[in-house]
């Protein structure tokens, strides 16, 4: 397998070089755009700050009305979910952005057939990821300083795996929409985004008694890219074996999602070629 064919080492190296060059050129273009369109950039960051503020207010209002969960857990959940969401943007197939997704889709025969300069903006995404990471670290150091450093490392590993899983689910829905609805505006992608947004505010511990809800939530793998990394982080009695099995579960789910995306993408390419693409 490594000597020749689609998965040869030479091909992988060429791919990585291609992705790196594309990424760098897009990044430079986005930096120039940000400096040229200062007002739009300012409004973009202000919108994200307002969005985060509305999330914090929602958590705060609900936690003081109900006393069901602490604002500390709620804030950590909110910002780590935003972090997973923004990290996943670097991996997602958002209207054909030629991004790091290529590393996970080595079977792609060509760049996704749309212009390169479409959202998400690489510079803005990296700034958001940086900001959210800083806030998450601050919350952990301020409210959870008694937890061991190993849990801290595991938290970030599961967070990264969660963002990969989210990106793959998003891609799967996107390819599904392109194949079966023949259009880019994917209602299922909105659904996944909205569900991730809802469960970025409320820990699923609150809803364990509601079996249908928990079933739907687990079916859509929502805990993986919202609360599960935090739950693993704060549970001090988790054994090494259980953590290892959870890690294997993540890897298994990601593997299944990669294969599902490949099948859906191949189907999309066939549909695209049928329509003269």
């Amino acid at each position, binding site marked *: 397998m490594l000597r020749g064919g689609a998965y040869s080492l030479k091909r992988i190296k060429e791919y990585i070089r291609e992705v790196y060059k594309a990424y760098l050129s897009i990044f430079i273009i986005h930096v120039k755009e940000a400096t040229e*369109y200062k*007002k*739009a950039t300012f*409004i*973009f960051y*202000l*919108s994200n700050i*307002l*969005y985060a503020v*509305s*999330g914090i*207010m*929602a958590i705060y*209002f*609900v936690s*003081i*009305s*109900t006393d*069901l969960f602490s604002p500390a857990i709620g804030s950590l959940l909110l910002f780590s979910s935003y972090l997973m969401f923004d990290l996943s943007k670097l991996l997602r197939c958002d209207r054909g952005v030629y991004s790091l997704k290529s590393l996970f889709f080595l079977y792609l025969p060509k760049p996704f057939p749309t212009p390169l300069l479409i959202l998400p903006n690489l510079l803005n995404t990296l700034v958001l990821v940086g900001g959210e990471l800083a806030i998450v670290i601050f919350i952990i150091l301020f409210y959870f300083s008694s937890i061991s450093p190993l849990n801290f490392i595991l938290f970030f590993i599961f967070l990264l795996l969660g963002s990969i899983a989210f990106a793959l689910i998003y891609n799967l829905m996107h390819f599904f929409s392109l194949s079966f*609805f023949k*259009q880019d505006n994917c*209602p*299922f992608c*909105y*659904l996944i985004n*909205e*569900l991730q947004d*809802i469960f970025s505010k*409320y820990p699923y511990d*609150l*809803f364990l*008694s*509601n079996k*249908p*809800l928990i079933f*739907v939530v687990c079916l859509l793998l929502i805990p993986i890219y919202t609360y599960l990394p935090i739950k693993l982080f704060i549970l001090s009695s988790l054994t090494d074996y259980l953590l290892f099995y959870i890690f294997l579960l993540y890897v298994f789910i990601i593997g299944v999602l990669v294969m599902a995306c490949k099948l859906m993408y191949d189907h999309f390419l066939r549909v695209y070629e049928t329509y003269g693409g």
Partner: protein
Amino acid sequence: MFTYIVSYFHNMIKRIVNYFIPGFKVAFEFKSLWLSYSLYDVIMIFILSSVFSVLDPVRGRAYYILYYFVMLLNGFSLWKSVRIIRDIREGDLLIYLTKPMNYLVFRFFYLLGLDAHRHTSYIFIVFLISFIFLHLPFINFLLFIVFLLLSFLLEYVYILTITLFAFYFYESVHFAKMVNIVLFFLQGVVIPSHFFPAWFKGITDWLFVSFLGYGKVEVLTEGLSYFSYSTFLAYLINFGVLASLSYLLWKKGLKRFEAQGG
């Protein structure tokens, strides 16, 4: 005089229907998309009502299902302004400057036509839930329909105001999105208004977003007791402020456009 007024309203209604029907037909043509968005709405409502009925077991699931179906009627539609601004910036700027009301009437009712299938179904669902599960009096539902029409009027004036920023600066789409994020929260969409602290609700009750958002649910559940002098005053003040602001923005915008050689 009377004939003139009747003929004016007759022509206006005819025009509105002519704008409404193409939107309605387009939505019907793309049935699968309409059904997928409706399915999306139903799933979202199931999830949200499950979440909030656990957080607030007193009101229960039926109440929160009703809450979010009512919010769907125009609570999520502030985003219409973003679509309109985009269209204006991409080509209809001059028409919008010279005939903003005509333009807005066309776009607003076309978009209403697009959503008519879903809105009709949701009003029917609201009607069913109100009577079968919550046993609300029929008069509440009638008041709700009247209030819904008044909230559409206020929504129209708000969209007129925010879209007038389209000929002030290029980033008006981003500006509208930013404003909508704030209003989305204040309307009671992100979390239901029952979770707002009393002081916060006291402020939002005076803003126009309450009439577009959770106010409709309160009319349905409280009926006549929702209406007080402060409610009428708040509505009139908000309508007056938005209408005056839109008029000023339009006048200034025209002068600015003429000064630039338009």
